[in-house]
């Protein structure tokens, strides 16, 4: 048992728990932040996608001890604050294209999409979109592609 400290959605947190606990469970079970979802725990489905220092990652596959005191974790709940708006342009695009169905995977989809556009720039290609690994079992993929392409032009 050790105290782990880092920044989540702009707030410093201190958590007492074992080093090996994956960050997803620290966020969900210990900090009560439920935006990142469990879909596999294997870094496959990407439903838990969040950002660390602005980069997309999957907290289901990161021991909490790997998180440094200066690391800034952003979950879907903290995404709007990163642009100082009520909603991030990607969230706006998600609304515009009515992307979601059940919604379970969508926080992870949005977080992955934001990082993808940051990485690739505004001219997202079909190959870039093909590279997204996040599962959507409702099959919202076509609207995800539309929303990302649209948001990329505005980001």
């Amino acid at each position, binding site marked *: 048992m050790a105290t782990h400290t880092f920044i989540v959605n702009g707030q410093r947190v201190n958590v007492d*728990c074992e080093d090996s606990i*994956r960050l997803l469970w620290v966020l969900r079970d210990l900090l009560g932040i439920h935006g990142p979802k*469990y879909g596999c*725990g294997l870094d496959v489905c990407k439903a838990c996608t969040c950002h660390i220092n602005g980069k997309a990652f999957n907290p289901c596959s990161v021991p909490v001890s790997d998180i440094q005191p200066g690391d800034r974790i952003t979950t879907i*709940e903290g995404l709007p604050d990163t642009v100082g708006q009520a909603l991030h342009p990607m969230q706006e695009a*998600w609304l515009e294209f009515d992307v*979601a*169905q*059940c919604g379970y995977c*969508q926080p992870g989809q949005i977080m992955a999409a934001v990082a993808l556009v940051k990485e690739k720039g505004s001219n997202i290609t079909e190959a870039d979109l093909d590279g997204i690994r996040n599962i959507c079992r409702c099959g919202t993929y076509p609207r995800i592609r539309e929303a990302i392409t649209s948001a990329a032009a505005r980001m």
Partner: protein
Amino acid sequence: MSVTTLAGESQADGARGRSGSSGVSRRRFIGYLVAGPTVIAGAQLWTPSARAAVPTHQPVDRYDLTDLLTDATKPTAHLITVVVNPDGTVSFALPRAEVGQGITTAVAMAIADEMDIALGKVNITLADARPELVWNQLTGGSNSMHSIYTPVRVAAAIARGQLLAAAARTLGTPRAKLSVRDGVIRGPGGRTITYGALARQAAVTKTRRVGTVLKAKHTVVGTPQRRIDAVDIVTGRKRFAMDIEVPGALPTMVCRPPTINGKALAVRNLAQVKAMPGITDVAVIPHTAFVAGGVAVRGKTFGQCIDAIRALDVNWGPGSVDGKSDADVLKDLRAGELPLTPALPGKAIEHAFTFYFRPGDPLETNCAIADVKSGGAEIWSALKSPIYAQEQLAQNLGLSPTQVTVHVTQGGGSFGRHLFADGAFEAAAISQKLGKPVKLMWHRSDNFRQGRVHPMCTSRIRVVHSGANVLSFDQRHTSVATDFTHGLGEILSATFGTLPEGDFLGYSQSVFTLTANVPYNFGPVTQLLNEVYSYDTFNTSSVRNIYSPEVTTATELMVDQAARAMGQDPYRFRRAFLRDARLKAVLNAVAKAGHWGRPMPAGTAQGIAVHSEYKSRGACLMEIDCRRATVDRQVENGYTGPRVTKAVFAVDAGLPINPLGLKAQMMGGMMDGIAQVLSYSLHLKDGHFLEASWDNAYYTRQWNTPPEVKVIVMPATGKHPGGAGELGVAPSMAAVACAYARATGQLPTNFPINHSLPLGFTPYPTVPPIPQSPTNGLSEAF
């Protein structure tokens, strides 16, 4: 106080009558076997046309599963209640499950439309189990909008009428001179009063029957509306079962057996695992008819539960299919196939198709929160049969049904998985055993390996044709038993399914007979079902669209075969033989929008297919690329294979409530259809499924998604909504299969087509039953 109205369906329903039914009682049709009309000799004509074709009639044309499910809700339709609140909002506790199909939005639209209020003023929640509703709280068969649309509108209309009457009194104006807009009632001279201001004074103290007339002109229904929960979803605020905080309900998981339905006999290292960090409880949970069971672990975090499960040393007893593999099941299916009727004179084409097991997994795994105490129990779970869940839970726990409160939570998908209450039953059993609240979550690997699946099945079809006509069509569908023992959503009809032959004769045959159809004039048609094993041998359920994806895919592949043998184009052949104007319209719509028949390179092709179910019609056109360069694309730990490059769908849902929601449902159906033909299945080997991850079971991913997708929502063809949630699957799957056959020049007979290729992954071990989470997540950040 508030205005509460009770919807008596009879008041509004008289004019409509039983849509699609001929007044024949439900009972008479249960177990009705399909039989064709007497044999009619084929006319010898050069050009096929609907008039010259040999007519086909099927009982399902007159009474189908949608009629049955809706009729079952009618005795309790008057218990549907809409509440007007003093703040001007309207509340409705929907007695159905929202699992992504958009029913909360569609119902809110119906209320907003009827009451002339803004959509944003309608609050839809999911009703707790209400046993007095009997068969009117089942979410299945794509029946929700069909069954609840009129009762909801009637309730809303009565509320509106009562508010107008109160406004007339308050304003001293005849009711006829009042108008309503956005919840504001306006009288002569510009005087206004709001619904909210009237909510209390319009309330009645004694329930009474009142008549009402529904609005003739729609203002919201039929317009594209975004999901009412969209903002909650994109901000992460939408709460699913595992996001709900119940005091003391700690994370709980189950160490599951290495083979399907195995049993935990003893734990060899109980004390050691109990002492692991964060773990509060470890207990054997016996396998029963209702509880999968194994060894439950409860702890501070799910991560620590995973560690504990992996550390457990368990003595496992046998499962229900130990030693069985795909080939054994196929052998049993072949042995169970019913014989074809003697062939008519003519040219016969006959093929048999095999469809392997496939997962029924939503992205949210089986899960539930349970707090069971000696005097009562409280459950939270995404349940499509909450009344059945409540009544069965009471039996399982030794409580009375009134002591069990069942909350229906928002579901992260369903696809048939949540007709059963697997998570809730197991969570309650664990909570009772431990005497503590639990937050139970299945691991993804559990969900694939021990969860409910679409049963493996075969379909043999023989088409006899002569000259320009098809003379007969015979289909023998043979399936691993489908578990329908949730019945109609309450315990009596559920228990009936568990009686000897109850599941097969009572439900499987009825559902098959009331859904399977051949929409063409192909002379005498027979479609017969047989099932092998008992309903509880494998863990199965009505996975999205039940029998239809396979029945229709086999049928439409054979339609292409017949067209080819008769020298006809697949589209024109269908158009000529279809016996339903609505199907012809959707077929023509996709052919036009998808540019049917356009020249395409070798190795690529179009496929086209139609399907009729739920009082709705669907047609799909798919273009597929089976060229080497495409098939050989490499994606790390992913399956690529042929790619559908364009997908066009036309849907006629009778009265389209929300075109945007309909489009979403059809798109989802197309993604399912693509996966089910090309890649998505489970391999049964030695009594267990090999797949344990989404990188093993290949559901459609972005690299399989068609870059071009179009959905056409046909204008209203009726005054009542048909079903939509499952409609997209069958015609999409059929269209992909037909496209694949045309692109490769080979008729595929095993589905998905990659099932018989070498495994594309290394299976995870079965002991321990779940893989450990990786630790290298940071190195993957982008």
